[in-house]
């Protein structure tokens, strides 16, 4: 080939060498982060426009639109993480501390210290989790059309909206299910053929060969199942402090706890770590931990707020959360405190007006908060309860903008249809 005809090839090869094969890792990481953020954002106007256009078309296009408008899978986060997680995911709780898997609809699965579990699959119609070993507390906010199943070895615990504890010991192949609220059904791959219903206040224990099935009251359970604290079913308030918060925990001889001896302090903390919140709450009161919150550091305040919420002690929970917001600089935890102040006000204090204020505060302070969807849902509910349809419609419209396919979209659409007169919200100056 003549040199004249090689100019393109020659320069092309030279340019290929100069441009290289791959950008540097930091650039790729930045691009990945940007894509990650985009994927976590709800779809924008473009998708809506496409969906509307498709909706006009008939036949196949219509089917596609229906498929694209299917409700999304329930979102969840692990151990107070700000970013949603995705199934399948494997989780091990460290010894002595519970780890919570919190779902956007308020349901929660708490792995007690040392337990190992998995979130196997989460779709719009089902949530499947597995307990590999140890104990898991579940608080399920059941919604029609959503099936919850917890697998433990060969057994499947099917949930009908409830609070229960599952313990699975792989070595002895022993299953124990204690139900505090609602009903669960237990079946297995092979070892027991029929389903066993376990109702509130009862414990089912199945021995190693699957034949030793005992169903009794929780108090007389063969395995000595601990009493299960029953927090409000619709509240996502069982969130434990995020890992970074706990890592910042003070040594046992911190400023709280009376005489400073570690065994005194370990009592309520250990009970909380084991999920015995009522016991932890009583112990903390006995130790006077709620009496002088100015001496408590942020980590302890968070723990106290958690056990107070679990124990449905609205006043102490509120006091501690308010103190928590006073002590530290703005952080994810202080933002979460605002959310929980709203939740406590609505669910325990029956003060919807205060709930609205705190939820608005949370939404304002944490633009990327993990609980924004839940906060919007609560805001809509509280505004409705207060008889403020315009405010509820406004919250619904904001929610739909941010979570067009969110878990509360149906309710939000209904509320957003309420006549909303902006002039009422923003009266003109005289």
């Amino acid at each position, binding site marked *: 080939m003549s040199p004249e005809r090689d*100019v393109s090839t020659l*320069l092309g090869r030279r340019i290929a060498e100069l441009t290289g094969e791959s950008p540097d890792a930091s650039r790729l990481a930045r691009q990945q982060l940007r894509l990650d953020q985009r994927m976590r954002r709800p779809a924008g106007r473009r998708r809506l426009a496409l969906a509307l256009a498709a909706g006009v078309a008939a036949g196949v296009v219509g089917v596609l639109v229906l498929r694209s408008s299917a409700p999304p899978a329930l979102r969840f986060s692990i151990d107070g993480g700000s970013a949603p997680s995705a199934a399948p995911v494997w989780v091990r709780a*460290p010894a002595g501390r519970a780890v919570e898997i919190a779902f956007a609809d308020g349901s929660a699965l708490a792995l007690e210290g040392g337990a190992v579990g998995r979130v196997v699959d989460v779709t719009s119609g089902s949530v499947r989790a597995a307990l590999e070993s140890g104990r898991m507390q579940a608080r399920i906010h059941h919604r029609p059309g959503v099936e919850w199943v917890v697998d433990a070895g060969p057994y499947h615990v099917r949930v009908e909206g409830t609070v229960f504890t599952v313990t699975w010991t792989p070595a002895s192949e022993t299953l124990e299910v204690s139900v505090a609220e609602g009903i669960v059904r237990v079946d297995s791959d092979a070892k027991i053929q029929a389903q066993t219903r376990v109702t509130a206040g009862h414990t089912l224990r199945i021995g190693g060969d699957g034949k030793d099935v005992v169903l009794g009251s929780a108090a007389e359970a063969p395995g000595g199942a601990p009493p299960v604290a029953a927090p409000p079913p619709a509240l996502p308030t069982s969130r434990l402090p995020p*890992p970074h918060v706990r890592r910042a925990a003070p040594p046992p001889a911190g400023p709280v706890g009376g005489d400073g001896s570690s065994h005194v302090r370990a009592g309520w903390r250990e009970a909380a770590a084991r999920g015995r919140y009522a016991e932890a709450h009583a112990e903390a009161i006995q130790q006077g931990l709620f009496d002088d919150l100015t001496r408590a550091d942020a980590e302890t305040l968070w723990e106290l707020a958690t056990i107070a919420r679990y124990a449905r002690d609205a006043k102490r929970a509120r006091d501690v959360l308010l103190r928590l917001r006073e002590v530290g600089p703005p952080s994810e935890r202080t933002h979460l405190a605002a959310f929980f102040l709203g939740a406590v006000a609505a669910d325990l204090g029956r003060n919807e007006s205060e709930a609205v204020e705190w939820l608005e505060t949370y939404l304002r302070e944490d633009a990327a908060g993990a609980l924004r969807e839940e906060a919007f849902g609560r805001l809509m509910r509280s505004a409705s309860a207060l008889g403020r349809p315009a405010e509820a419609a406004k919250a619904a419209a904001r929610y739909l903008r941010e979570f067009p396919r969110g878990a509360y979209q149906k309710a939000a659409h209904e509320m957003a249809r309420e006549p909303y007169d902006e002039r009422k919200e923003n009266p003109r100056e005289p």
Partner: protein
Amino acid sequence: MPRPDAQEPESAEVIELALEPSSPAALVAGLVARDPRAGRLLCARFGATINRLVARLLGPDQEHDDVVHQIYANVLAGVASVREPALFDRWVTRVAILTVRREIRARTYRRLLRFGVSEPEPADEKTTPQRMLLRSFYAVLGKLAADERIIFVLHHVEGRTLPEVAELRGCSLATAKRHLARARAAFEVAARLDPVLSAAVEGGHHEP
């Protein structure tokens, strides 16, 4: 000061179980479901290819990352329409090429609307022989039509065969050949008039 006997509580051990990397179907399903891990897998699998294509089709560009992001956005927007996950690799490459094509055409229109006012050069760019060569090369390419430019780069810079180029560009082999012939003719005339490119050609001919 922490006490020597203080023990920090362990954090939870969380392992995201990977999507099956060898399964394009799993990747497509993950992207349709907006699974963040699928996004990471998309970046890991196609990041190098997409960046290389953008760099070679556009040249050094201040908006490189924006174009790459737009490609990812277009992939997300269209992934639900993928019917054959086995051909997902090729589909992503086509989306990348189409996105860059759209960008080139948009820039052409913008330039026309500015009535010949040229875009400012990056101020902080140091002049090196390599940069001068790149700048000259893409200045010449900038005079070609979008399709001619793309086909030229895919064939001469990317080293893809003409049937491959035709498939990626979504045109017939004859059309690809016609575009390439036109692009080569225009490019080679302009390259010989450009001192940097002609020097590079001369130097290239003398390389062992």
